[in-house]
């Protein structure tokens, strides 16, 4: 028995030692573990901790044991919930909680809880394994921040995009408004407008143009000018434009007294980019009517004035001829002066009538094939007395060979040469020189008349060919002149297909030129004058 007792004692002694060894082993093992572990009893008082727990919380074993766990792990209600759910569900539960270290530092942790029961299922306490998640949390927070930042950026982008879209929408609206405005301007324009694209096809016709041309834009759209229906309005326009869209500037098309259009084409270019052509139809009917009325008025007045002027002319001549009785030398002198004034008046009225005929397009030409040399000679001969009276020397030179003959209205050409010669005589002081010459350039005859007279002031040279122009320097000379001669002459020359121009220096003289083309057929130059 003793022997048994001894064996039993030895056995239990060994068991005890083994157990102590095991405890030590576990303690050493647990202290070696990097995971902070603590044990609490059912009233949630710490009964054991390991080394890692000491490191994490800063409490040593003696300081920690006996402390309520809630003083270290917070918040208390979440901890309680965690503990009870671990007990209830008999499994390990984890939750992110916070540890307050001895030094009052808050450490984010994950707490895993396992409830301990005896074999009769009575609660004997809990194991808490605590992991420091500071780094994870930091990383996570960083990530969150990043996500937040990214989200914010995205949000900003979205807002920016929305703003852009709003701006675009507004710009679109503005553009639309502008387009509407432009369309309204085009639609309500008092001028007719036809716009052609780059292929010279019609792509816009405003209502005025439709009205002017009695066509609908529908019928014109997509067609070339040459393909357009030739109604009585469209016909003359397409005829004008067929000759080329360029250089159409203020060309007049007359549709009787009811409508006169002034046509101008304009190339459309935006920043060097060709967009097409624009045809502008400007209504000048009113202006034409006024012009016609004015011309008619002048024409009528001039005709009316001619009757009494003729009566005066005849009376004066008969008085001077002694048909109405003898007159004294004194009376004769006065009557002769009156005759001169009357002749001047007749000349002026005739000039005015010529101008009105030119303006009315009634200045008829009867061209015949003639030698311009004889026309010039005739005029010079008619002015011989006047040249002598003023003491002027006249030189007339022309090529030895016969000049090419030209188709001219001889009467009208005489008027031209006479106007130019009269001017030269009038504005050249006594003792001066006038040089007249004709040159045969084969395709045209050039007439030149050079005087040593007063010339035309430079600042007035641009107006020389205008109606009623008289130089400021000649008005002071008290010479007569209507200011119509040059205007009439230029028109006559141009009606013959020629040109007229001049050179002048005030005080030195003036040189006038004109050319008449050498053509066999008068149709080639005869305008409907």
């Amino acid at each position, binding site marked *: 028995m003793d022997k048994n007792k001894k064996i039993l004692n030895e056995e239990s002694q060994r068991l005890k030692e083994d157990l102590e060894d095991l405890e030590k082993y576990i303690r050493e093992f647990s202290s070696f573990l990097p995971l902070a572990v603590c044990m609490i009893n059912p009233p949630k008082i710490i009964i054991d901790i390991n080394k890692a727990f000491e490191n994490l919380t800063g409490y040593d074993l003696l300081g920690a044991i006996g402390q309520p766990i809630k003083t270290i792990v917070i918040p208390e209600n979440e901890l309680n919930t965690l503990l009870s759910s671990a007990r209830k569900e008999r499994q390990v539960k984890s939750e992110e909680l916070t540890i307050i270290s001895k030094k009052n530092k808050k450490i984010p942790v994950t707490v895993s809880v396992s409830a301990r029961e005896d074999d009769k299922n009575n609660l004997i306490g809990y194991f808490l394994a605590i992991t420091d998640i500071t780094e994870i949390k930091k990383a996570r927070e960083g990530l969150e921040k990043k996500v937040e930042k990214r989200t914010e950026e995205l949000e900003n982008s979205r807002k920016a995009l929305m703003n852009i879209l709003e701006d675009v929408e507004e710009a679109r609206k503005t553009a639309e408004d502008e387009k509407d405005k432009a369309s309204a301007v085009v639609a309500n324009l008092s001028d007719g407008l036809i716009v052609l694209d780059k292929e010279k096809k019609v792509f816009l016709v405003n209502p005025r143009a439709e009205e002017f041309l009695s066509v609908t834009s529908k019928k014109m759209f997509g067609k070339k000018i040459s393909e357009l229906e030739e109604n009585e309005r469209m016909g003359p326009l397409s005829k004008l434009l067929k000759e080329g869209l360029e250089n159409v500037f203020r060309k007049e098309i007359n549709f009787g007294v009811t409508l006169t259009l002034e046509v101008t084409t304009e190339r459309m270019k935006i920043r060097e980019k060709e967009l097409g052509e624009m045809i502008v139809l400007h209504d000048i009917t009113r202006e034409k009517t006024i012009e016609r009325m004015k011309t008619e008025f002048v024409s009528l007045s001039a005709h009316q004035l001619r*009757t009494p002027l003729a009566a005066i*002319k005849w009376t004066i001549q008969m008085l001077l001829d002694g048909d109405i009785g003898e007159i004294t030398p004194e009376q004769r002198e006065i009557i002769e002066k009156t005759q001169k004034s009357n002749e001047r008046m007749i000349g002026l009225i005739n000039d005015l009538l010529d101008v009105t005929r030119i303006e009315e397009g009634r200045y008829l030409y009867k061209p015949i094939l003639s030698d311009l040399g004889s026309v010039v000679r005739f005029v010079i001969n008619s002015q011989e007395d006047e040249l002598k009276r003023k003491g002027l020397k006249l030189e007339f030179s022309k090529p030895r060979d016969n000049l090419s003959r030209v188709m001219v209205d001889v009467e009208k050409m005489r008027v031209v040469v006479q106007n130019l010669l009269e001017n030269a005589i009038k504005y050249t002081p006594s003792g001066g020189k006038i040089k007249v010459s004709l040159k045969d350039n084969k395709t045209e005859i050039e007439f030149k008349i050079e005087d040593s007279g007063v010339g035309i002031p430079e600042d007035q040279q641009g107006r020389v060919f205008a109606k009623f122009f008289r130089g400021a320097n000649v008005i002071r000379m008290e010479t007569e002149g209507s200011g119509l001669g040059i205007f009439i002459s230029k028109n006559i020359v141009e009606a013959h297909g020629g040109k007229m121009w001049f050179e002048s220096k005030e005080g030195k003289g003036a040189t006038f030129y004109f050319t008449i083309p050498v053509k066999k057929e008068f149709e080639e130059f005869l305008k409907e004058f």
Partner: protein
Amino acid sequence: MKTMGKKILLIEDEEIMIDLLRKKLVAEGYKVLVARNGEEGLELMKESLPDLVLLDIIMPKKDGFEVMEEKKKDKNLKKIPLIIISNSGQAIELDRAKALGARDWLVKTEFDPKEVLEKVKKQIG
């Protein structure tokens, strides 16, 4: 005078022109008949068969052209020489007058009675 007795019919509506021309022609020995419009002129022409007609263009009742047209149609009057004395002298008018048988055309502001007389003499001596 060899002009003695020759009858000139002056168709003209302007009184002063009538006075002046009549004076000038009568002084030369012509017998001058005067009509103051185209209608009267034609009647007088038929009635008196003058040696020459001096005709104005713009006149009340029948104008100069109408007178010439009717004169041309009338075989009794057709041959009577006719000179136009008018206020204007456009080429187109001249051509028309020539076609209707006018011998000459004088523009009043460019000719005076003395020159008219010369033209008259040229036609009928």
